[in-house]
């Protein structure tokens, strides 16, 4: 009866998985770094996992070689759903993969594989949607700033996309719910934890002008004979409108 507590997200989790494999242990649960330890009622022990990049990379290599790169990518997406029991699910997924090898690619009808697949697709879908939904605003401090409140933890999927795309300006994408941010300093991007915004952001003059132009353009592009707010809401759910400038009232 053992539980494993890991730090640092996916990398840490892979280290925990590696250790379980080495120990030959069947874990009863995984704890994320921030979770408080519950009272130890059943004599369970909690094993603390130190994150080691090399260990994580080795496990990644091993799984990709045994199964496939897409199967690993799916697991990574699924992990970032942060669903409550996702670690045990992925533990079963990883061990199944190491046991069955390439065949796992065909086992789409297996209960665990199907669940991981579905979770993974959900996160990948949300990350794709947010590649469109990010709205950068130019702050007086001289960088582009975007707020988001996605359901899954998708910053790691968004940041590389925007490094490619907006490489000539420093920027920050701020996940408000998780108080974390991806920042880019013209050389590389980093993930920062514990990022809170202390005051209301101050926008540049050009920013205000762009916002206004975009809002008017957006309004005009709708064809009134085709008015269909339900369809619009299917694509842009109310929860993702909070930081979309085109849905803010025009000043």
């Amino acid at each position, binding site marked *: 009866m053992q539980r494993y507590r890991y730090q640092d997200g996916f990398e840490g989790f892979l280290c925990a998985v590696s250790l379980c494999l080495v120990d030959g242990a069947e874990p009863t649960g995984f704890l994320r770094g921030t979770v408080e330890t519950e009272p130890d009622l059943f004599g369970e022990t909690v094993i603390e996992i130190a994150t080691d990049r090399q260990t994580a990379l080795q496990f990644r290599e091993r799984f990709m070689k045994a199964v496939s790169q897409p199967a690993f990518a799916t697991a990574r997406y699924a992990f970032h*759903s942060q669903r409550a029991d996702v670690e045990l699910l992925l533990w079963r997924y990883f061990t199944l993969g190491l046991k069955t090898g390439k*065949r796992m690619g*065909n086992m*789409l*009808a*297996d*209960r665990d594989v*199907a669940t991981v697949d*579905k*979770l993974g*697709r*959900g996160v990948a*879908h949300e990350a*794709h949607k947010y*590649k*469109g*939904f*990010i*709205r*950068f*605003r*130019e702050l007086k401090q001289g960088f*582009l700033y*975007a707020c988001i409140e996605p359901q899954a933890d998708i910053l790691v999927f968004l940041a590389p996309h*925007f*490094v*490619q*795309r*907006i*490489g*000539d*300006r420093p920027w920050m994408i701020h996940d408000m719910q998780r108080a974390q941010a991806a920042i880019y300093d*013209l050389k590389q991007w980093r993930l920062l934890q514990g990022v809170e915004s202390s005051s209301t952001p101050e926008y540049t003059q*050009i920013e205000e002008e*762009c916002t*206004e*132009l*975009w809002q*008017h*353009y*957006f*309004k*005009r*592009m*709708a*064809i*009134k*004979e*085709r*008015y*269909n*707010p*339900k*369809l*619009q809401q*299917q*694509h*842009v759910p109310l929860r993702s409108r909070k930081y979309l*400038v*085109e849905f803010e009232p025009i000043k």
Partner: protein
Amino acid sequence: MTFYVPKQYYTFYMSNLDLKQRLEILADSAKYDVSCSSSGSNRKGVPGGVGNTASSGICHTWTADGRCISLLKILLTNSCLYDCAYCVNRNSNPIQRTALTPDEVVRLTMDFYRRNYIEGLFLSTGVFHSADHTMEQLILVARKLRLEERFNGYIHMKVVPGADSQLIRQIGLYADRVSINIELPSSRSLQLLAPDKTRQSLIAPMRQLSGLIETSRQERKQSRKAPQFAPAGQSTQLIIGATPESDLEIIRLSEVLYQRLAMKRVYYSAFVPVSSDNRLPAMAVPPLLREHRLYQADWLLRFYGFAAHELLDQNNPNLDMRLDPKTGWAMRHLELFPVEVNRADYEVLLRVPGIGVRSAQRIVVARREGRLKEEELKRLGVVLSRARYFITADGRYLGGIKLDGPELLTRLTAPKRRKAALDQLELFPPSAAVTAITGEL
């Protein structure tokens, strides 16, 4: 009122409207062009540069009519020499005329792109002065974006019919996608509503584009240094419901365009009455359902191995509004069903109503590992509401009722019941098949 001439070669005057007002007017004039996609091109960003393209395309927002915005869709000017009856910008329409300068378009594109409002630019225009002159202005914008701003995002450029073939050759060097709109599905309609244009004057440049795209593709197979020409191909648009063509004529035309001109997309635009011209039908609402059915049929041509003559013929020249065209086809061929999901070829699975490309692929893969029954199909994410009447799973027919035409038709066209409360527990419900409407793939 004061006037100024923004460029010495503009032959008309712009009133002194500010940028916001001109943007609004030109958005109004551009919005009936339905092409929105930013897909089909995959260009990497350069270090420290601006822009890249994603081959899947990315939608950035959706307007109140439920259509996606992916590109800054705008006209350079809504001033036009032509008088096409169906067009909001026709010469005789008493709307306000204005223009943006090439520099203004470039600035708007860059400002909007940096803020991630858009994937890039879709630039169209009314024809002013001459086809060649108009085309030169479009090329100027594209060149500025690519060379001066080092912009690597998506560019979709309208090609002006009648422009010199050398100019057409140039635009494809900067644009990801190029398009010429046929608009009216038959020559006789074109003659009636757009007397300034002929079918030939539209098809000839489309053919040239198709040739240039193909040549560039071949050359790039030999050498990666060969210049790209419109890597995302060309598209066109047909207006639906302004003229009396049947769905059969429309789908046949699309089929020819896909086969002969390697068209990437044909867009269908339900006619919105933008004038009260007596050559046009009086309509209260645009034929949106018909437009939707045509998109479904179009998808069947491109991804499901259907031919136009299988979907429609002289006896059934129009799509059934009650059923999607694949179900319509299956209802006329009940003798082919049910099919066994564990044995049927991929091509056969694709023809089962309710089974899409992704489901068919997953079935083919998953059945290598074991027999698929109803439960397994559900786990694969196959939606059975329609499919169940057309398949057996491990020998068991899932439809419950005997496959008989009238009764089945009643079932399939019955209004959808509310989903059971259980469904709401799902974390990530599969997104609806509405992608076909927005045109994103």
